[in-house]
């Protein structure tokens, strides 16, 4: 659960998830928050990784994935800290891992009422079309942050999970597909945000269209990940240690 200045919502979100799926461990990655996010999350019963400065969602997620691998978890699911994702869907999205390496909880797949309009909608549709073609699997919502990964996908993410804008969704997904990970989607419902306001200005949506297109082009042009040597990968039980220092 990546969180940046989510003090208002994080406590309730954790308690809801714990109430619905108490058998899962919750990790909150506090992405350099300036508020009480980390303390509230710890009080609510989650394990907390506190990044010393803000890295962006991608940065927070890779830190969480590394933690998962080191602690021997075999499946990971990312859930929004602001309560947008229904905890009842967690097990349904995780079930998608039975037939794939990455399972995406998708918003436009028949369930729920989430809707976007104008350029943002076009961008999402176009991105979904292109990535579906690459993945040879029908995907309708590739920018969803509600996604699960198995160990194979986690190792892939160690190699490529950019901290940049949309790097955590489009870029990492495209490179994972190119490197041989299979992807499925599971229809989910989206709840209204518990706190904060979503951006709806048409100008922002247009900028989003342009930037997401650019990110997609870069991602499509990237080489697939090379198989890494086992020695450089994080192992279950490691507390520290790092893959080769060179890039």
């Amino acid at each position: 659960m990546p969180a940046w200045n989510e003090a208002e919502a994080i406590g309730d979100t954790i308690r809801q998830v714990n109430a619905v799926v108490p058998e899962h461990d919750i990790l909150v990655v506090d992405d350099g928050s300036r508020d009480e996010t980390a303390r509230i999350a710890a009080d609510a019963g989650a394990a907390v990784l506190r990044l010393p400065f803000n890295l962006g969602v991608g940065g927070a997620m890779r830190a969480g994935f590394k933690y998962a691998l080191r602690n021997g978890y075999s499946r990971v699911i990312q859930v929004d800290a602001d309560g947008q994702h229904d905890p009842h869907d967690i097990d349904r999205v995780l079930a998608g891992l039975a037939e794939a390496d990455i399972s995406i909880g998708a918003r436009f797949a028949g369930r729920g009422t989430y809707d976007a309009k104008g350029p943002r909608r076009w961008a999402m549709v176009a991105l979904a079309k292109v990535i579906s073609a690459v993945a040879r699997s029908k995907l309708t919502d590739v920018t969803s942050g509600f996604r699960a990964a198995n160990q194979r996908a986690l190792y892939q993410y160690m190699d490529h999970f950019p901290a940049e804008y949309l790097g955590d969704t489009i870029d990492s997904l495209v490179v994972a597909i190119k490197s041989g990970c299979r992807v499925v989607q599971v229809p989910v419902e989206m709840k209204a945000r518990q706190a904060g306001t979503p951006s709806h200005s048409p100008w922002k949506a247009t900028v989003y269209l342009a930037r997401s297109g650019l990110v997609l082009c870069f991602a499509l042009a990237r080489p697939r990940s090379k198989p890494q040597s086992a020695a450089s990968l994080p192992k279950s039980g490691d507390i520290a240690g790092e893959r080769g220092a060179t890039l």
Partner: protein
Amino acid sequence: MSSVAFSLVISVVMVVVVLLMLRSGKLREKYAILWLVVGGLTIVLGLFPGLLDLAASLAGIKVPANLLFALSIVLLVGVGLHVSRELTVLEEESRTLAEEVAILRQSVESLRNSVAMAPSASHDANRPVHPAPQTIPKEVDRDH
């Protein structure tokens, strides 16, 4: 002629500044060498301005100063690109460090909590924990 003398003075000052920065450790050798080479070439050109005219006529450039400008632009673009690349490498490294720090902090905190939960497990729990024996890290040459 005075402009040539001026550029000579400038390049000598530049070489001296680079050397001083090198001496005080403000500039790493791998970056300093580039600037020393540039400064050295400028000094040579300042001492023998005829070389520039010769090079320009060989390259078919009518105004010798244009050769100088063109070369400087190419050089600066190259330097800018190189700095961006180094910055990307550094950002990735600091990202990795941030991840490690966060994971270590979490594991230290959970260890500390589990120790606090079970103080009777070891009778000398109040003893200050001695730091692990320090090993001096080997200097690693990271030049690519």
